[in-house]
């Protein structure tokens, strides 16, 4: 009887321990998020929301979203095609195995290494100069594995009848993919895209040497061929929110409240996208 009682006692203690851990982290994570957001907004002044050259976050916010958009333009087609290839066309063999290892390598690469690669290829070899495009291409390297794996999982996760029925009606493999499988997979592929976008928003290390810091935008200049002050020009330097937080440390005298606000806005962006991903 004694042993049983002891076992029960330990069971209860351990249950308590697990509850403690869970409650601790639950409050820690919630507290962390609310702290960042509240602190960001309490220290903010109205001028910080402007699109001015210095001391505001408007341009950086625009750059962040624009950069992620451009990077998705590259990573979605490539990621989805590679995912379709893996799910539908790849035969078991060396090439497929190697492709899977490549995707895993890409997904676990330190983002600073990707940033250095981007710096070397787009800046040193192609001579792009520090630009939004170079940063977007580096971020898309980080996004490709996410999109590829979700696409492959989405297609493989569909019931087998979908493909069988389509083939049975006389459709070719591509016709079944295009008309049946992809439409059925769109929601899950979107999840992957949103996940990748969320990562892209916060990316800093990969942009450190590719997009540069400082951003000089004229909001009445919409001439794409003009010097790099047009907001839509992709060959201009573009400081993002995360780089602004990092830059706040390097340049003495920059208001820490600005970095606090950038952190809060980034946090809200990520939360919005994560909630969007779940629905």
């Amino acid at each position, binding site marked *: 009887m004694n042993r049983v009682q002891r076992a029960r006692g330990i069971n209860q203690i351990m249950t308590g321990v697990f509850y403690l851990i869970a409650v601790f982290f639950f409050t820690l*994570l919630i507290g962390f998020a609310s702290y960042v957001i509240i602190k960001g907004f309490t220290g903010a002044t109205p001028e910080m929301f402007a699109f001015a050259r210095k001391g505001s976050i408007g341009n950086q916010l625009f750059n962040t979203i624009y950069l992620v958009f451009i990077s998705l333009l590259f990573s979605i087609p*490539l990621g989805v095609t590679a995912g379709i290839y893996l799910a539908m066309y790849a035969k078991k063999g060396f090439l497929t195995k190697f492709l899977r290892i*490549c995707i895993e*390598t890409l997904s676990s*690469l330190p983002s600073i290494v990707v940033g250095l690669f981007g*710096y070397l290829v787009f800046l040193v070899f192609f001579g792009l100069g520090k630009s939004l495009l170079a940063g977007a291409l580096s971020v898309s390297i980080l996004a490709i594995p996410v999109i590829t794996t979700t696409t492959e999982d989405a297609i493989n996760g569909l019931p087998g009848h979908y493909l069988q029925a389509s083939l049975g009606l006389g459709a070719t493999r591509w016709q079944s993919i295009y008309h049946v499988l992809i439409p059925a997979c769109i929601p899950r592929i979107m999840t992957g895209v949103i996940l990748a976008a*969320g990562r892209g928003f916060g990316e800093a290390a990969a942009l450190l040497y590719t997009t540069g810091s400082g951003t000089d935008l004229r909001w009445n200049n919409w001439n794409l061929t003009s010097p790099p002050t047009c907001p839509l020009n992709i060959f201009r330097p573009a400081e993002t929110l*995360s780089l602004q937080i990092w830059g706040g440390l390097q340049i003495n005298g920059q208001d820490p409240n600005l970095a606090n606000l950038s*952190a809060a806005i980034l946090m809200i962006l990520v939360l919005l996208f994560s909630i969007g991903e779940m629905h």
Partner: protein
Amino acid sequence: MYCVFRENSEQQYISLIKGENMKKQNMFTKEYAWRGLMTAGGLLVIAITICIGAFLIYKGSGTFTIFGHSIFEFLGSTDWNPEDNAQGGGTVGALIFIVGSLCTCGLALLIATPFAVGSAIFMIEIAPKFGEKFYRPIVEIFAGIPSVVYGWVGLTVLIPAIKKVFHLQVGHSVLAAGIVLALMIFPTISNVAADSIHSVPKDYRMAAYGLGSTRWQSIYKVVIPAAGSGILSGIILGLARAFGEALAVAMVIGQTTALPKGLFSTTKSLTTEIAAQMGNATEGGEMKTALWTMALLLFLLSLLFILLIHYFSRPKKDKE
């Protein structure tokens, strides 16, 4: 009359077949074209990865081929003083950064693993309804929070706190980096561990309960061993993420070029040194080449982590 009609219909039939064949042919060309395009996408991903590896090897091997340092000097010496020009002649011992990375990541794992596995057990075994609905989504959201934000909060909250609690001159320390990294990799480990615990068949638990074990006994003796390889994969994934993190660590580690003497001493890690120095170094100089070698080392380490995950999660032979 009949004859003509027949001829007509035959012609029609033939032309119909011809058209059908054309259509079919067209369909098959399309089929092959699209198949080619998809394959090209796959091949392009391979090409990018190989490109990254090749560039890193090409750039990083310069330390050994152009500047003539030995691998042992690079990996085993703490003497870091590369010249910032193409003549070379400095020293490239990167041991400080390697030890710095190992210390911070090891500490982060020590802190994060028990809590992460504990909360994974909580959300699957102890409170599955609450875990599935609230706890897990929140942990998942936190896997996506930008590392700069973690670093920034570490810098503005954690470092003053450490300074105050332990009465130090500076709060920047290995401990601070470890805590920030632990918070960062906690969601990663927790998610992967929860997945692998979830995939343990229900019969295992039922059998354990049937034999009269308590819930803790079934968790400790049955579920955790059964989910062991998955949990280990999660830990390695977390380690890989911690190793590659640059800016969050750079904000709190203090950036002094010396081996860490204890929890509270400042040091540097591989990633923070790259992030700090790459922008200032001259193209083609010894300094830059040595930094490339460190990037190559990071690349090789992330390959190693993947191989480890494959090794641990390979299908096991049944032990009867």
